[in-house]
């Protein structure tokens, strides 16, 4: 192990910022991070061991205790549930002889839940040693069980198991016509970088991650920072349940994305760029690096790009995440890039003035960079001609859930929800979760509403539920998700998301009484208004948006009594009953007083 780690650290140039990459490699090799490894890494990277332990315990994909040689994680998103996650879980438990959350006694395989893997249009999905397994079926599980028992390395497994589909169904401005590698840069250099920024400004392009900050303004602010070191970061930590468009863009349109990043670098004067790729998209890592190598060969990366009059030197490095939704928040992502726990920073300062290692940094979504590249080629007018007054252009949606054709749909901003439902063949609709759990649940009476920053903003997640679905199940899944993903930095979110989970469980499980929904709503408001970052501020949205629309559903769960304990009273006597060997009437308690 000692040599393995020495080589690893050498390969990572003794950079503490590469801690996640180092730990990913150790985890992959030893299926946990051994104590001795922590000591050695601390010495070589000159960081306290506590930083390493902190990072290990922060990210879901790192472990202090051994996992199986085959680490199987099943996606626990609502769309996986709808596609048979529970049945597949039971089948895996039986077939692989391992319980969810456990390591098999022979140490060969471990099995656990993981947050949404971004395969919502082809679930139920899983990860095996980090690699995506779409569309689980009993037949595939049989096959996997054989492969595991033969101890065949995952790299030698049949490719068909890992066949992730793009499912691009509706194309428009961004997806319809590919630009050639270098085309955007050529045009931009010819037009002039200042003029190109003006085109982007004129296009009205706003950040596609969901928050919608104007892209040209962000680039302008960053370029005005007086330093010779600016940074470009592409946020590909697509963790919002129900979103998978960045996976498709990086699989089929990676040149466009890298072109957009390089364009940004030229405009703001950056030499260094990062693509922060969520760990769940490990399957894209090698091919993306190959594309970067191609772009180097084409003179589109590296020194003096395209021999332009302005000297542009730019390189892109791909950094993999390790299972933490919070890293989609830009300042948490930057912390993660620096090799730390993904804890959102205090703002101000904003990343455009002090980002990665304190340097002015532009962080944009995958789709934003792609759009910028296409705008550089086609001009601002081309883009601004579509969409609404406040939301120009198109939005790429990841459509999943109850519809005939889940997949990628590029819709014009201002498109009505009804038109989108018609496009994807959704019938008997109960409601739609727009923008993922952190967004809004709308009911089937609101289908005239529009996809736009001024109405329903979304980072791309669009989950459809038909009338066979139970709203409280959906809300419960989302609320558990936030409690699991809270970084724990601030009190209202750290404690509040877990309290929300417990309080909602009490109601959903039928133990709620008169005051419990009021208490739930009060808690929602507290978490929403007092939390540090977007995660906490939106964590109560699933409850709040459904409580607003379906108050009767919550009320129906409540008992007509003034109070019921939030824990199982009779079960609390179980140990004492067993030890006293009693089972008489007095050895039991009813949950609420009778009579």
């Amino acid at each position, binding site marked *: 192990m000692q040599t393995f780690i020495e080589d690893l650290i050498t390969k990572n140039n003794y950079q503490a910022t590469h801690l996640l990459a180092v730990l990913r490699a150790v985890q992959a090799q030893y299926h946990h991070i051994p104590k001795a490894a922590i000591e050695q890494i601390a010495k070589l990277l000159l960081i306290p061991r506590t930083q390493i332990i902190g990072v290990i315990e922060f990210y879901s994909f790192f472990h202090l205790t051994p996992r199986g040689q085959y680490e199987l994680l099943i996606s626990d998103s609502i769309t996986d549930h709808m596609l048979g996650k529970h049945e597949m879980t039971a089948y895996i438990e039986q077939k692989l002889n391992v319980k969810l959350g456990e390591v098999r006694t022979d140490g060969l395989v471990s099995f656990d839940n993981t947050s949404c893997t971004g395969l919502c249009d082809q679930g139920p999905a899983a990860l095996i040693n980090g690699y995506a397994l779409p569309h689980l079926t009993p037949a595939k599980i049989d096959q996997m069980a054989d492969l595991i028992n033969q101890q065949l390395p995952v790299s030698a497994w049949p490719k068909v198991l890992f066949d992730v589909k793009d499912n691009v169904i509706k194309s428009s401005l961004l997806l319809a016509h590919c630009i050639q590698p270098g085309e955007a840069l050529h045009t931009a250099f010819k037009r002039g970088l200042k003029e190109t920024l003006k085109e982007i400004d004129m296009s009205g392009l706003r950040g596609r991650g969901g928050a919608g900050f104007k892209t040209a303004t962000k680039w302008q602010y960053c370029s005005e920072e007086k330093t010779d070191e600016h940074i470009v970061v592409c946020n590909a930590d697509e963790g919002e349940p129900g979103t998978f468009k960045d996976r498709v863009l990086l699989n089929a349109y990676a040149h466009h994305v890298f072109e957009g990043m390089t364009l940004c670098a030229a405009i703001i004067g950056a030499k260094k760029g990062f693509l922060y790729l969520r760990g769940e998209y490990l399957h894209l890592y090698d091919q993306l690096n190959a594309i970067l190598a191609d772009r180097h060969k084409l003179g589109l990366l590296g020194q003096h790009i395209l021999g332009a009059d302005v000297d542009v030197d730019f390189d892109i490095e791909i950094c993999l995440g390790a299972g933490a939704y919070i890293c989609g928040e830009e300042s948490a992502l930057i912390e993660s890039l620096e090799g730390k726990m993904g804890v959102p920073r205090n703002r101000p300062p904003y990343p455009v003035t002090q980002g990665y290692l304190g340097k002015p940094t532009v962080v944009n979504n995958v789709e934003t960079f792609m759009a910028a590249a296409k705008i550089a080629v086609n001009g601002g007018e081309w883009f601004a001609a579509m969409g609404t007054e406040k939301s120009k252009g198109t939005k790429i949606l990841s459509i999943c859930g109850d519809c005939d054709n889940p997949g990628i749909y590029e819709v014009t901003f201002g498109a009505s929800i009804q038109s989108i439902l018609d496009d994807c063949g959704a019938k008997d609709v109960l409601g739609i979760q727009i923008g993922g759990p952190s967004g809004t649940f709308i009911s089937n009476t609101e289908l005239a509403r529009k996809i736009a920053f001024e109405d329903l903003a979304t980072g791309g997640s669009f989950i459809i539920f038909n009338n066979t679905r139970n709203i409280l199940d959906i809300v419960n899944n989302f609320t558990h998700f936030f409690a699991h993903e809270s970084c724990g930095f601030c009190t209202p979110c750290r404690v509040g998301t877990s309290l929300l989970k417990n309080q909602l469980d009490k109601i959903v499980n039928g133990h709620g009484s008169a*005051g419990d929904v009021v208490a739930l709503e009060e808690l929602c408001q507290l978490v929403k208004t007092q939390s540090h970052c977007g995660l906490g501020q939106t964590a109560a949205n699933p409850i709040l948006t459904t409580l607003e629309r379906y108050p009767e559903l919550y009320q129906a769960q409540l008992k007509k009594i*003034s*109070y019921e*304990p*939030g*824990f199982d*009273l009779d079960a*609390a*006597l*179980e*140990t*004492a*009953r067993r*030890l*006293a*060997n*009693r089972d*008489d009437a*007095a*050895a039991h*308690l009813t949950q609420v*007083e009778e009579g």
Partner: protein
Amino acid sequence: MTNKIRVATTSLAGCFGCHMSFLDIDERILELAEVVVFDRSPITDIEHCSTDCDIGLIEGGVCNSENVHTLREFRKSCKILVAVGACAINGGLPAMRNFIPLEECLNEAYINGIGVENAQIPNDPELPLLLDKVRPIHEVVKVDYFLPGCPPSADVFWKFLTDLIAGREPSLPYELVHYD
């Protein structure tokens, strides 16, 4: 007599310290007795609450099945239920056993402890069974008011009861709020 306010009190998993502190109102108890009559309480030896109690004061947390029954009786019989003292409010000192599994606690006390003879965990049906955790009372029934302190001082009782009796919303000034 019938116009007097009926007050019931009890101690669950507590030490009766709160009751002692209540009695520290000293001669003010005579003033109180003008308007209050004590129902079920250790100081009256009445075993069960009348159905029309006005105020129930509960000391101690919930550690066993008997506590649950008593607490329910109080909740049912009292218009206003008050959690009195640290134990009723968050389990207090008895709740410090929560971090040792109940089985270990019982084994240590009745089986493996030093000097234990006739090692056996008591199983008489007359004895209430222990809950796996000691709980604050508001996790078992709805509670209307909380008087913190270990114990709350006599002045806390006095201030609270006189407020309530006078029809004021009870409030405790800074000097009276203590958790120790």
